[in-house]
């Protein structure tokens, strides 16, 4: 239809194309994901192109709550009609609403490009990153709520303390005793190992997975998908010694660790960085079993 986007498909191909045969096999899940993304994108563009009226507004229903303002102590939804622009995200829309209609509208945001992980909202019944969610993908009115299962501090701001506590509980830092010989030596990681932990290292701590998990909602001590994924990143890192990996598995195999996961795939569905969280949790379950059952 439109001529301006014709060149798009071959563009990412050249960036991602692996050179040797072995790498090709390694990169295939990512390529599949990229492929899927591209398809979704083209479908999106196709639907967006199907002529909508020019002077268009977006109808937002935004959750409002403020314990310090008398008429906002009882939570309510405010309606905002924001002029639509091509490529507008949910974050753009709430920012417009804040800048033009109600400056007291409060929400966290920083980088606006899905890197900082501060603007995870509950948009139309799903945990999404505001800056990564296109308005054109959503049906209106768009309900923007703070993340479920966390306490609301004000408007769209939730208390993330518990999430951060769980993240820190898995000791999310590299702790190898084994330092390289020379002063300027580096702790090198093999390419294969890097590929293995690549997806898990993409976590931006937005808390969408934890919020979507209804096991974490019922069990406050459950580490949650994000923390387990963080532990996966380090437990699967070959540069750490076997004892440290065992120490990590001891944390994870506790009652409120990996075994709480009941594979509902909610976290994997909502993760804005497409981390296969359930897969990682399942792999750690197998590692935990293997550590305790040794028949050989």
């Amino acid at each position, binding site marked *: 239809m439109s001529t301006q986007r014709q060149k798009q498909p071959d563009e990412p191909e050249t960036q991602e194309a692996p050179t040797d045969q072995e790498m090709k096999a390694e990169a295939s*899940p990512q390529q*599949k994901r990229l492929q899927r993304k591209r398809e979704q994108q083209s479908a999106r563009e196709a639907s967006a192109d199907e002529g909508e009226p020019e002077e268009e507004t977006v109808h937002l229903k935004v959750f409002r*709550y403020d*314990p*310090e303002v008398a008429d906002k102590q009882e*939570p309510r939804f405010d309606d905002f009609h924001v002029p639509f622009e091509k490529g507008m995200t949910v974050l753009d829309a709430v920012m417009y609403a804040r800048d033009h209609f109600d400056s007291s509208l409060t929400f966290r945001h920083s980088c606006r490009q899905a890197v900082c992980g501060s603007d995870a909202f*509950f948009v139309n*019944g*799903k945990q999404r990153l505001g800056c990564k969610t296109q308005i054109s993908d959503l049906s209106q009115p768009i309900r923007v*709520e703070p993340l*479920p*299962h966390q*306490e*609301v*501090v004000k408007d769209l701001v939730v*208390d993330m*303390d518990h999430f951060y506590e769980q993240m820190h509980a898995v000791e999310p830092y590299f702790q190898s005793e084994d330092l390289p010989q020379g002063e300027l030596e580096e702790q090198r990681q093999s390419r294969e190992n890097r590929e293995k932990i690549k997806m898990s290292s993409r976590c931006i701590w937005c808390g969408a997975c934890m919020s*979507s998990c*209804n096991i974490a*909602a019922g069990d406050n001590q459950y580490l949650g998908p994000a923390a387990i994924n963080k532990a996966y990143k380090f437990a699967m890192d070959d540069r750490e010694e076997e004892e440290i990996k065992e120490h990590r598995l001891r944390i994870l195999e506790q009652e409120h660790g990996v075994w709480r996961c*009941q*594979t*509902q*795939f*909610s976290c*994997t*569905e909502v993760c804005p960085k497409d981390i*296969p969280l*359930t*897969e990682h949790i*399942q*792999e750690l*379950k*197998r590692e935990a079993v293997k550590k305790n059952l040794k028949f050989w």
Partner: protein
Amino acid sequence: MSQSYNRGLIEDFGRWKEFSAGMWAWIFHKFTGWMLIGYLFTHIAVLSSSLTSPEAYTTTIQGLESLFIIRVLEVGLLAVAVFHILNGIRLLMVDLGVGLEAQDKSFYASLIITGVIVVASVPTFLDGVTF
């Protein structure tokens, strides 16, 4: 935090329209599991009538099987058991890390196969029973 507002459980059954395949699979698996446990007790109760005498067992079974509602419940039991088995295999695959990206498709497949088996079993289960 000085003051904050707890909205309680958002992700409850009121949001069932937004549940994803994995969530439905989990709910159905729990539900069918409890149904099967419930059936286990009735099963033991019926079987234990054979402790009194062989005739008591025969009359109990014949009496139950002559009831239309029991035949319908048997079809339901088959549906529950077949789904639980098929989804159990799916969960086994998930635990082994096989085909996690196809977990939603395997859930739909187990639903369809359950439906086919149940429909195919109806003539057998409702054979020779009157209202």
